[in-house]
């Protein structure tokens, strides 16, 4: 007698709008169901804090919170990645914690001992879907990569201009429309046309941008930078002061540019660092020097409270900013940070750079 296998339902952690390309890729290469992962809310972080080690960095808490929410919604296949810091241990630890909680699931770790391994990923994908086809997957992978590239490019433009929009929410509305249209494309050309169409529209949105507007550089730890909930919507708050925002970290950078640019950053800031310091620390030091040299009005550095690489970078960033006399603001976000305190500091920072620029 054939035993009916349960349907595979996949879930992965949330970060910004990147659920769109992630879901696009998985749904096109695997014959499975993907859960509509809920956006991060207070419930997510409450769950995360309850089941995480207390002194782990905050992204661990956010991502495990999302995974628990997804498991409760019926997911039975979880996907998690890793990176060059404590992020490299997330998968193993989260899998163990969730198993100890009594959940039954397959865990796909995109990393193997801290390194990307294509072979391992393919093997794991074959376990989920025995009909997994490499050629078809590579095809959709190229579209997904382009999608991320276009998303990030549009995002960069929006970040620089959203503070000056004449009609409120006009950028966000069009961006959402664009992401929605991406979900159904089937070819590279189709994607490109959608991107062209919407980027043109977005560029036409009316902005009132004075010539001497204030420019802010936003650097720091990657998850806190890219997930608006975890940084208390810092970018939106900054934009409300009519400032243009420059942020380098995005998924496209991390996947395809970091390897090359990290080395460049170390060389560029060689009077401050000699070696890479793990995760994005060296990149941020290089960016600090660049932003200072290019007359940015201020730099804001954000991280989750226990992010070790960035803790190492902070004194150096402070030193560079003092040498160039560029105002600098540090934020460390954890699960219990009061929003009022953050707003006070941003308002004061704005007053300061505005007063200085006169």
């Amino acid at each position, binding site marked *: 007698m054939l035993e009916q296998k349960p349907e595979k339902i996949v879930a992965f952690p949330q970060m910004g709008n990147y659920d769109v390309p992630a879901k696009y890729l998985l749904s096109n290469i695997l014959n499975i169901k993907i859960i509509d992962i*809920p956006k991060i*809310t*207070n*419930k*997510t972080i409450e769950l995360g804090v309850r089941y995480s080690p207390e002194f782990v960095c905050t992204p661990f808490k956010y991502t495990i919170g999302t995974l628990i929410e997804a498991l409760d919604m019926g997911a039975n296949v979880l996907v998690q990645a890793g990176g060059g810091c404590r992020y490299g241990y997330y998968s193993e630890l989260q899998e163990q914690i969730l198993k100890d909680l009594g959940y039954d699931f397959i865990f796909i770790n995109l990393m193997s001992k801290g390194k990307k391994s294509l072979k391992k990923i393919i093997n794991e994908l074959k376990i989920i879907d025995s009909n997994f086809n490499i050629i078809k997957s590579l095809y959709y992978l190229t579209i997904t990569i382009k999608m991320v590239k276009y998303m990030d490019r549009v995002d960069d433009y929006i970040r620089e201009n959203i503070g000056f929009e004449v009609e409120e929410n006009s950028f966000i509305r069009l961006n959402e429309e664009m992401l929605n249209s991406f979900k159904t494309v089937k070819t590279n050309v189709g994607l490109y046309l959608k991107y062209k169409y919407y980027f043109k529209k977005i560029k036409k949105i009316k902005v009132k941008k004075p010539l001497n507007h204030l420019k802010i550089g936003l650097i720091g730890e990657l998850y806190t930078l890219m997930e608006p909930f975890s940084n208390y*919507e810092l970018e939106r708050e900054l934009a409300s002061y009519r400032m243009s925002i420059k942020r380098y970290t995005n998924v496209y950078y991390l996947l395809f540019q970091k390897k090359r640019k990290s080395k460049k950053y170390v060389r560029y800031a060689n009077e401050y660092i000699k070696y890479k310091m793990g995760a994005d620390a060296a990149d941020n030091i290089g960016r600090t020097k660049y932003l200072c040299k290019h007359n940015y009005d201020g730099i804001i550095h954000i991280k989750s409270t226990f992010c070790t690489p960035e803790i190492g970078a902070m*004194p150096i960033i*402070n*030193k560079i900013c*003092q040498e160039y*006399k560029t*105002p*600098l603001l540090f934020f*460390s976000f954890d699960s219990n*940070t*009061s929003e*009022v*305190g953050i707003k*006070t*500091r941003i*308002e*004061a*920072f704005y*007053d*300061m750079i505005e*007063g*200085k620029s006169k």
Partner: protein
Amino acid sequence: MKEYYLGIDIGSISTKGVIIDNDNNIITSLYIWTEGNPVSAVKNLIKELKHKMPKEGVIKGIGTTGSARKLIGLMLGANVVKNEITAHAVGTLAYYPDVRTILEIGGQDSKMIIIDNGVVVDYSMNTLCAAGTGSFLTSQSKRLGIPIENFGEMALKSKNPVKIAARCTVFAESDLIHKAQIGYSKEDIIAGLCKSIVLNYLNNVGKGKRIVGPIVFQGGVSKNKGVLKYFEEILKSSVIVDENSHLMGAIGIAILSRKNRTDQKYSLDMNNIDFKTIGSECSLCSNNCEVLKIYKNNELIDTWGNRCPKGSK
């Protein structure tokens, strides 16, 4: 009619109010305890200030600052609502135009403001935790049974301040209890406490900052002579404490309200204003925002804390 401006600084522990004229002269001022209720504290404050203000004056501007600035600003219809850092810098610069460093320790916040040529060029604030601030001193004064006003005098008497962990109030408190139990005198313990406030401040708020004179020290804790003494000792420099050091934020915000004045006149009559806030948890999605609804004379005038428009009804 003389034109006056009211500045109110509503802190976690105390509420400060000043009335100034067009030349930044202080007409009258008041310092009262907030006692956890900013709305009623401000009502009392204004009632007294109105009494003390010359009859021929008219209020042409109101500014609010401090942690309850937004709420009170809304209640009074203030023309300026600004953060404490800007307010303190403006207030201090009015009296000490060549100041370079402002040290400020208040009830729950402490900050350092660096000024160059009369412009704020750098600032820092304690990292969202009340360690090393006035509220810690107040709670310890209650525990030791010594009024906070006498703390400074007692600290000065000590020749041998005890060492107390300066990083975190929880550790500091266990150090304090321990030192008291093994028999150190209260003077030495209080002196150690004052010193730990200074060390905590310099390690935490002053990290990586270059402190140059003239240095001005303000906020409620600046009235504590013990803390002042250890600041001067550790910074190896003289530190100025103005007689109005506890009012600087209120003065600064009054000046800002003068600079932003319009033709509007303000009434200080608080009797006919019924001001109410109701906090609740929105249950329309799993974010469960803590929503605060603000009613003026039973009419909903604003909603705070909601991340989406759903919670504002």
